[in-house]
């Protein structure tokens, strides 16, 4: 018995969030782990300021175009009907 699928669609996998200033962020997190200065008032203040400066000057990444595979699958379904 053939399987009938009404609408053939592909659900894209959720991509991990992009980190703009990954180096500075990892340095600050490492400083927290080493000194437990979670409020950035002592030893980790400079690492936090470096991260804030990086976030201030780094341009945002452009929007990634979503794949059009579902559009082509819908077209294919009309052709094969």
């Amino acid at each position: 018995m053939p399987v009938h699928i009404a609408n053939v669609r592909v659900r894209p996998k959720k991509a991990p969030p992009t980190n703009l200033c990954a180096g500075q962020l990892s340095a600050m997190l490492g400083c927290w782990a080493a000194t437990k200065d979670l409020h950035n008032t002592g030893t980790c203040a400079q690492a936090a300021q470096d991260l804030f400066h990086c976030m201030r000057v780094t341009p945002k990444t452009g929007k990634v175009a979503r794949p059009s595979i579902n559009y082509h699958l819908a077209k294919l379904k009309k052709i094969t009907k």
Partner: protein
Amino acid sequence: MNVFLPCRPSLVRHAFSGLGRRTMSSARDAPTAAAATTTLNFLFPGVEAALSSTGTSTAAPSTSAITSPSSAFKVASTTAAAPLTLPPPSDPLLSFLTSLLQQSGNRTRASARVSSMLLHIHALTRAPALPLVRHAALAAAPAVRLKSHKRGSKNVQMPVALSEKQRIRAGLKAMLKSSEGKQGKSVQERMAREVVGVVRGGGGALEGKAVVHRVAMVNRGTCLCGDTPCAEFPDGGVLSLGNLWELVARAQAHARGTDWKVCCDHS
């Protein structure tokens, strides 16, 4: 507070405006002076030479009748060439806080509440309120946010850095939520007590920030990785294993004879 000045607004420079520097001795004053001297020379021959010999171009505007406040301002301004600088029309932080308190598009009511909050802060501390609000907003602002990401069958929390606007918003939101447990009949009074509490080192907003930072610190191995495993150096540095040759080169540069350990659990 609106300050009335008897001059064109474009001639006044705000502290944070994008207007270029305009001095009071602009092109409009030169034709006025030239017209005045021409008229005077017609009525009193030789006055132009006398004026030029004294070298006071400001005398020409002064001889004409001061009929409007703008001309009076011009007269006063020709003697002092420095432009007038005013503070900005609204503080950006207070404007942001007003937007957070605003409900149903009623900006006037929210603005009045913010002003009342500043008054309450001053009543509690006898100190200027705006610097305290700024200090509290920065102190309560978290530096990172945790985003949940599914890796295999496991949900991991990834720390993501925040921009300045995002940080301030998160800090003010945390203070607003924490102020609900404070004493006071109105939101401005409770918010004022929360601001004073944060400045003094207490408050629920600071505790919430510490919790977020602690979880981010525990999950620091996922901030660079994404889906690739990580290695952690004993001094806290984190590298991605996506490029093995780069990892080997950095390991050789940091050769200390200590062992690495894999920090991420990839099931």
